[in-house]
């Protein structure tokens, strides 16, 4: 059997791998994409909000023809406690104008569609095949080994986009095992509801949608991040927690989502709905400081595999798409010189640095560690906010001044004035 040889071999048909494949195939590069799942999207669970801007240069006139659900016109942020929340929301008519800022999508359908764009452009996608390790020659990556017989593929360059638990990044020695303190487990249910019911409950019409992001102590006092997104005829309700916290608080994901569904602010929104799907996935939340080496001789890493997730703004797929696109552009430049050494490919890192990808990841780089060491930020503060709001808004004959004094006293007792100042400073340092 003769060698299987391609210009570029891409590991993983997610947003990063597929966007790289589209850009390369359109430029006439001979590209193969190897996907582990039954089809692209089969293994995906993304929360469901997809930003339009990153599709520039990949698919023209997005979202024409793409399987999108609702365009988001209102985003709500809630700090939740056991039976309450304090919230902030932003609804804007500007979000209701094309091109829409973002849409909810089902990744199983979306990735299938994106894969179709790649094959239409001339890329070859092979499913149900696991890439086990790179093929090395004189310390350089010259291809990939798959788990199939006669499964070696030679390539000028390999783009690794095999997701959060990247086998390739590990076998290259680019990263160590995932750390339980920097990976979240997210569980999600798709809850079916009538389109009209969703429109009424969320105060929207037509194709408009709403997202709610939640944070706080939801269950057994452990910090959790949760979300609710409206689709056409369903809502996606999910909750994520750092794996280390799950272990420490002996929480299983099922309990977590069940308690979320019973939360008094959530249960009326999903009442009468039927759970259609139940999904779980890991999210790399370590941010900038947790990123692996991104480039080697004949190889680049993109997307979740490179920890390109902005946990603060629940962005991941747009970072993946952009990084895939930049990796492809880097290859095209390198191909002109015929040089795929790490020195040549290092312009991929430069491109990432110049783009919003690295800039955003850097901006929040201290945050994962800060939250890890300062649990009160996500645990005590939401609780204090909720207690304060409740006290202030309850009319019970106590003067407002008296109430404020009491709230203040309570806060000082719970956290302490200097600690509060410190926390403020730390947050300002890491997100400001």
């Amino acid at each position, binding site marked *: 059997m003769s060698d299987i040889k391609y210009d570029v071999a891409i590991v993983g048909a997610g947003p990063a791998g597929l966007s790289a494949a589209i850009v390369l195939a359109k430029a006439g590069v001979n590209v193969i994409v190897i996907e582990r799942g039954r089809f692209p999207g089969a293994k995906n669970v993304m929360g469901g909000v997809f930003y339009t801007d990153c599709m520039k240069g990949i698919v023209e006139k997005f979202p024409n023809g793409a399987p999108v659900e609702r365009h988001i016109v209102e985003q709500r942020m809630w700090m939740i406690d056991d039976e309450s929340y304090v919230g902030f929301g932003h609804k804007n008519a500007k979000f209701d104008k094309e091109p829409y800022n973002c849409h909810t999508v089902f990744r199983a359908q979306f990735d299938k569609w994106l894969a179709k764009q790649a094959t239409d452009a001339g890329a070859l*996608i092979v499913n149900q095949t696991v890439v086990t390790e790179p093929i090395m020659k004189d310390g350089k990556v010259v291809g990939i080994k798959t788990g199939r017989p006669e499964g070696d593929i030679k390539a000028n360059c390999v783009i690794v986009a095999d997701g959060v638990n990247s086998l390739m990044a590990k076998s290259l020695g680019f990263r160590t095992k995932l750390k339980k303190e920097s990976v979240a487990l997210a569980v999600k249910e798709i809850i079916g509801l009538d389109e009209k019911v969703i429109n009424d409950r969320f105060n929207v019409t037509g194709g408009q949608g709403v997202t709610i992001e939640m944070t706080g102590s939801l269950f057994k006092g452990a910090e959790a991040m949760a979300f609710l997104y409206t689709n056409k005829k369903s809502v996606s309700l999910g909750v994520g927690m750092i794996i280390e916290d799950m272990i420490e608080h002996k929480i299983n994901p099922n309990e977590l989502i069940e308690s979320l569904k019973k939360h008094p602010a959530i249960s009326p929104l999903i009442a009468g709905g039927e759970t259609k799907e139940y999904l779980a996935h890991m999210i790399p939340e370590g941010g900038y400081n947790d990123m692996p080496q991104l480039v080697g001789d004949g190889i680049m890493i993109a997307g979740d595999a490179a920890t390109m997730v902005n946990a603060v703004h629940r962005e991941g797929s747009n970072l993946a798409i952009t990084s895939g696109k930049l990796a492809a552009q880097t290859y095209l430049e390198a191909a002109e010189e015929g040089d795929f050494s790490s020195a040549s490919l290092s312009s991929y890192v430069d491109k990432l640095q110049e783009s919003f990808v690295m800039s955003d990841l850097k901006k929040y780089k201290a945050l994962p560690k800060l939250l890890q060491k300062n649990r009160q930020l996500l645990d005590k503060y939401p609780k204090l906010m909720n207690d304060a709001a409740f006290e202030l808004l309850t009319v019970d004959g106590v003067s407002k001044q008296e109430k404020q004094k009491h709230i203040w006293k309570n806060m000082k007792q719970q956290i302490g004035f200097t600690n509060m100042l410190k926390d403020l400073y730390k947050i300002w340092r890491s997100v400001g």
Partner: protein
Amino acid sequence: MHILVFVKQVPDASQVRVNYETGTLIREGVPAILNPFEEHAVEEAVRLKNEYGGKVTIITMGPPQASEALKQCLSRGADKAYLLSDRIFAGSDTLATSYALYEGARKIVELEGDVDLFFAGKQAIDGDTAQTGPGIATRFNLPLITYLIKIDELNLEEKYVIATRLTEFGQETIKAPIPVFFTVEESLNILSHSPLPYLIKAEKAEIELLSGKNVPLDKEQCGLKHSPTMVKKAFTPEKRQRGATLSGTFDDVVSQTADKIAPFLKKVS
């Protein structure tokens, strides 16, 4: 040697649920798969091809999306795949389906040459009738070996095969002339992990299309109107109730269990 395999795309029966209010199947969102028995039929065909030489052709009847099932056959190592698709076939029962596939197969013989071995699954997991395969064999007037579990010997020079089939009471080993028609059991072989070149070839392959346009069809034998099978009655199996949970000390639970079982035992005896 030319091997022709008949396959069907079916809903993944393990994921089909029953709507107990209407008594109908919930097909929405159920993935379509290649009928598992036919996956083994293709596996056997490719194994024989690799041993004796020749080619493997696949045919299915179904809507355009059935080409997914054909692709899967190609990624198992089949050489060419034909999709027989036409509105005229809508609502076909096993009689009309076997007719359509018979005509489709005759066209393939015309295009690809004589067939030595015909394969199909023993039945499809959605209908479980086990009639379509034998129906095609009968129309071709071929010797038929159903419930195939082993091909003991294949002699292409003297044109015979010795094969073992499963019966209700045991096994039968039969000698039959070639060409011959098999319907196969899952125990015929263990599915292999296809080599990567097969998958690449499958992704690049074009599915050949057959329809009333290029296959001569007798319209009086096609579709719902010419399908004599009638569903007389459909019923929903009773929803299984959750078993009772007993609690208490070990002795308590034992005596509670005995109290619950005793009336049944009395009734039976």
